């Protein structure tokens, strides 16, 4: 041992001694915490804080340097639901919850990410595993179908997988009319196949305990599927039947979109009227307010002003509006 290292040892020794020596005989709890060599509590706590600081600092430094080796979020080691159900023993329901949380994180994280190539590759496998682990997990089928059907980039745009998931739910719980109704909704809203939608609504209406309004919904969908009135009826019933805040918010948003579509028609008519009377297009909403065609600049149901293109006279929903984008199939041109 060199003289320098001896000195260092001596100074550590005296540091421990001074920490030990002060304040008379140690209290019993302190004595219990002290090691055989009398390693004082103060030194111990100080050392732990110092070392933990070093550990966290190193971790942060490493993360800054090596972003590229972050684990791939799109990794799913086991894809077989039945296998996971077996190995979970009697803890399959809690495992289903874990996979459900993972599903929400995958969907929400991808949807909100700023990436241009959003990939929802794991959404269906995660939902399949969740519902295999807990076949009665109704929300996983219902939300899962909504997530899967949602058009890209807000979702994977896979109504086929959504229907598949709902059919799995129907096999597990044939008494749940909601799955049949949701399948009809996907045919209506995303696939625009109103005949199939009406068939699913009809099947839902035949399930014992299903609500009365499924029958008129079936008739309306069959007669005038695709127009705004029947869409409004569909979403209004969805809102009233929703047993969950998320479903309620979704239905409220869609109803607001339908109101915005009506607004756009009315505003386009006003612009056309102004043009026919003056011979030119209005350059802003203020011109229409000045002409007493409007009382104020129009705003959508979310409170965002509508956009008026002075060059073409086209009235559009602002891109920053929470209602954007509006369902294309219900636009009138």
């Amino acid at each position: 041992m060199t003289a320098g290292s001896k000195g260092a040892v001596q100074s550590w020794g005296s540091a421990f001694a001074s920490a030990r020596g002060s304040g008379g005989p140690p209290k019993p709890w302190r004595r219990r915490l002290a090691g055989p060599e009398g390693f004082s509590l103060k030194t111990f706590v100080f050392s732990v804080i110092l070392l933990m600081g070093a550990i966290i600092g190193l971790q942060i430094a490493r993360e800054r340097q090596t972003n590229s080796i972050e684990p791939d979020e799109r990794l799913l080691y086991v894809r077989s639901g039945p296998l996971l159900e077996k190995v979970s023993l009697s803890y399959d329901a809690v495992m289903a919850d874990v996979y459900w949380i993972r599903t929400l994180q995958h969907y929400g994280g991808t949807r909100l990410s700023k990436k241009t190539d959003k990939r929802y590759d794991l959404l269906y496998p995660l939902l399949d595993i969740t519902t295999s682990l807990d076949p009665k997990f109704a929300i996983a089928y219902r939300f899962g179908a909504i997530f899967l059907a949602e058009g890209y980039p807000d979702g994977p745009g896979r109504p086929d997988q959504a229907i598949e998931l709902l059919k799995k739910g129907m096999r597990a719980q044939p008494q749940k009319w909601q799955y049949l109704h949701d399948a009809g909704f996907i045919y209506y809203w995303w696939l625009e196949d109103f005949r199939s939608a009406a068939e699913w609504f009809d099947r839902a209406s035949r399930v014992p305990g299903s609500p009365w309004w499924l029958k008129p919904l079936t008739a309306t969908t069959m007669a005038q599927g695709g127009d705004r009135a029947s869409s409004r009826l569909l979403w209004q019933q969805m809102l009233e039947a929703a047993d969950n805040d998320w479903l309620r918010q979704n239905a409220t948003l869609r109803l607001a979109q339908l109101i915005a579509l009506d607004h756009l028609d009315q505003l386009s008519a006003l612009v056309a009227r102004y043009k026919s009377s003056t011979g030119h297009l209005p350059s802003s909403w203020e011109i229409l307010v000045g002409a007493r065609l409007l009382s104020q600049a129009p705003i959508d149901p979310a409170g965002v002003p509508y956009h008026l293109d002075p060059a073409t006279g086209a009235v559009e929903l602002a891109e920053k509006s929470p209602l954007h984008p509006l369902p294309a199939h219900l636009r009138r041109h």
Partner: protein
Amino acid sequence: MRVVREIALHVFKESVRDRVPYTLVFFAVLLMATSYLLGQLTAGQEVKIIKDLGLAATSLIGLFIAIFIGIGLVSKEVERRSIYNLLSKPVSRRQVVLGKYLGLVLTLLVNISVMVAALYGVLAYFWFVSDPSVKAGWETPALDPALMVASGLIFVELALITALALVFSTFSSPLLSAALTFGLFIVGHFNADLKRFDQIVASRPVAYLARALYYLLPNLTLFDVKAEVVHGYHVPATAVVSAVGYAAAYIAVLVATSVFIFERRDFK
């Protein structure tokens, strides 16, 4: 009977002194508090997830108590040589086995009761703070009395596992006993597959053997009604009564086997 009660109380006090149940109960309470945090991430499924997590934690922690204390019930006395002291008193070996078993069952009962009370506490909090519109979306009420059925059957299952650990404890080392008991716990959840073995093997003798094992090995799936209760499905009284009857008969066989082995064991 008084002797059995004294031994049982001694086992209970010893397990409390061991501090292991305290740590595990603390863990259960902590887990339930964590479930509250998890509930924030689950799109309106807080109550379901808290129930799932609470019941799973109760079952898992009870399993650890049953196995890790159960395997030492007899073997620890032999290792410490305190068995000589115990048997020198006017106590029969049968009373020792029975008392030790009932003592651990009492420990489990107290622990499970604390965990279930904590679970109801977390659920009561949710019930109290949630809007009526949120409550309307719950599959079952937060303070659903049916949770008692699920936790009651968890207790019955753990009493059976304790009896298994006791049998192994009478003739085997703690490590081997733990491995065997845990192995049977896993088999107990898989043995429905043994019944259907004839569908995957061509050999009839193997299929018969599998069928025989299905009936002989403990069928622990009978006690698992957690998912049904959480989703609000009715658990028929006959299913509960038959599961309890099955467990009682199985436990009687296992305790009798423990007594049989222990009475013939030579400690010299």
